[in-house]
């Protein structure tokens, strides 16, 4: 149990309070019985209750040392390096946001191809290889979804 647990529990307590606050705007059923607000309020209460338990568990348990970043077996066959490069995780979200913003203007193939290329390049795939794979994969996905399954994928100024 570390600092993150307290932050997480704090976020969920805030969510519980927020749900309660918003639920006051909901109408009631005839006869004064709770209607649309009942379930959200139960959930809001449960968020607060279980978050407090998480905090309580955290304060009871001693801090455990962090897991080693690498795990190597006796024969040296397996090398696993733990999660370290958080920027790449953020990059995935940036790329999804960029896709939403740009796909209607640039079209599915160009935007998707750029997303694939940037991510592969960031994951140390050689630029030329990334470019070729991105182009081939995007043409394949476009054929499957747009031509095969008739999904109206966004087409930009080039009508792709």
């Amino acid at each position: 149990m570390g600092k993150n647990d307290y932050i997480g529990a704090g976020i969920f307590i805030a969510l519980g309070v927020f749900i309660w606050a918003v639920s006051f705007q909901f109408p009631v059923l005839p006869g004064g019985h709770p209607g649309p607000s009942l379930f959200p309020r139960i959930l809001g209460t449960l968020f607060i209750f279980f978050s407090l338990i998480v905090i309580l568990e955290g304060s009871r348990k001693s801090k455990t040392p962090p897991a080693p970043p690498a795990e190597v077996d006796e024969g040296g066959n397996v090398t696993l390096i733990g999660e370290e490069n958080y920027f790449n995780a953020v990059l995935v979200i940036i790329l999804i946001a960029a896709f939403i913003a740009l796909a209607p203007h640039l079209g599915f193939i160009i935007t998707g191809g750029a997303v694939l290329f940037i991510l592969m390049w960031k994951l140390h795939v050689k630029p030329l290889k990334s470019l070729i794979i991105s182009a081939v994969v995007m043409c394949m996905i476009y054929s499957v979804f747009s031509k095969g399954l008739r999904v109206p994928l966004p087409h930009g100024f080039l009508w792709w």
Partner: protein
Amino acid sequence: MEALFHGILMLFSLKTFFVIVACSFYGLFVGSIPGLSATLAASLLVPFTFFMDPLPALCSIVSMSAMAIFAGDIPAALIRIPGTPSSAAYTQDSFALTQQGKSQLVLGTDILFSAVGGLMGAAVLMTSAPLLANVAMKFSTFEYFWLAALGLSATVMVSAGSQAKGAIAMCLGLFLSTIGVDITLGYPRFTFGNVALLTGVSFIPAMIGVFGISEVMRNVSQRRMDFAITKVKTRGIFAGVGHLFKKYQWNMWRSGFIGIIIGILPGAGADIAAWIAYAASKRASKEKELYGKGSIEAIVDAGTANNACLAGDWVPALVFGIPGDSITAVVIGVIFMKGLRPGPMIFEQHPEIIYGVYFAFILANLLMVPFGWLAVKVSSQMLRVPKNILVPIILMFAITGAFAINNDEFDIITLGVLGIVGYFMERNDYPVAPIVLGLVLGPILEHNFMMSMIKTDWNLLLFFTRPISALLGICTVAMWLFPFLMVFLEKTKDKKNGLKKNGLA
């Protein structure tokens, strides 16, 4: 009888058979890549099922999941990393035997016992589901409410790590299910004027986000992942397995039974079945000292249980509309997407689909033998597929798949947001499967609760007056009280021990 033949005919139509074969290979591929789970494979498959008829859509998930759960055993044996969480229980034993030069025996055992486990599960699904469906015909809103509550409680109880965190994840899923127009007065809740949210959080993009995007984010944030791969000769791979069938016959039946029961229990999946079967096997074994150091008995037990569990998971999903695990949560989403309603009525209205699903389980488990052999043969090539190329492609399929369901960019936003939530929750030891189960069961829970309350004029006691409802209610409440009882018992024990130490007792 007519429905039975119709179901078999539909299953063996060229289109459905092609779907089964294609999805089998897809399952084998995804299952054998460490870090990619069967649930991720199922969620990425959903956009394709959108364009299929109901039976091939369901068969695609049946064959994919059966193969993926088996294929998880391949990297477990060859590189000591389970391909899916279901193989984690016996990874150490599989790899230890591989190091002793017995990789052929391990993988041959994995293939055949997985297939047998799957067939046992299919037999129970075929016999128990129609019987339970008859019972479920008598269910009213009270019973459905308690079933949903029981399923959610079981999900929290079996979640790894802190149960409080599991409960928070479940609450998050339930909260997401409240977004949109309310069922009692049609009032829009938590939409904040956003028209796209009026119909609620779209289930498929949410699911791809929670399972798919979070896995993509986790994979890209790993700096390096290298492993040396042991090559396996497939000639004579099944030699010696026949002897194991004779020697461990009782183990096979016991583990199949454990797997099926765990599967039928809402919320618990193949990974838990494997761990429980492993523990039961160790307790009953005459060679306990081999467990963890290379026990073929452990592989027989856990390998049979995880595949038997798969069909068991379908029992509550088909009969009650309550998912047995995260894969069947996807299945329920697919059934709704096809305009059908899981529950006892599907057995009366669409028996041909139900028969088709039964035989799809049998077919998938029979195909597991030749396809599994093939997967082992090309395993060294499959494990060499570079993840830095594969993961970006998965991201692109996830984005396109989320968009394809409603042709709506808002679904990609849902995908991204739920992906971030899933990633951060997993990083902080919150299980993510309860989010999806909460999202699926939330409407069932709220709808049946509100209906019951309105028809009983808000008399809560009536939830305990019908016999089955009372039984389910007592089970659920007992499950809620269990963790508190355990804390109380532990404290009492500590107190007694303390008194004994001080010589006061």
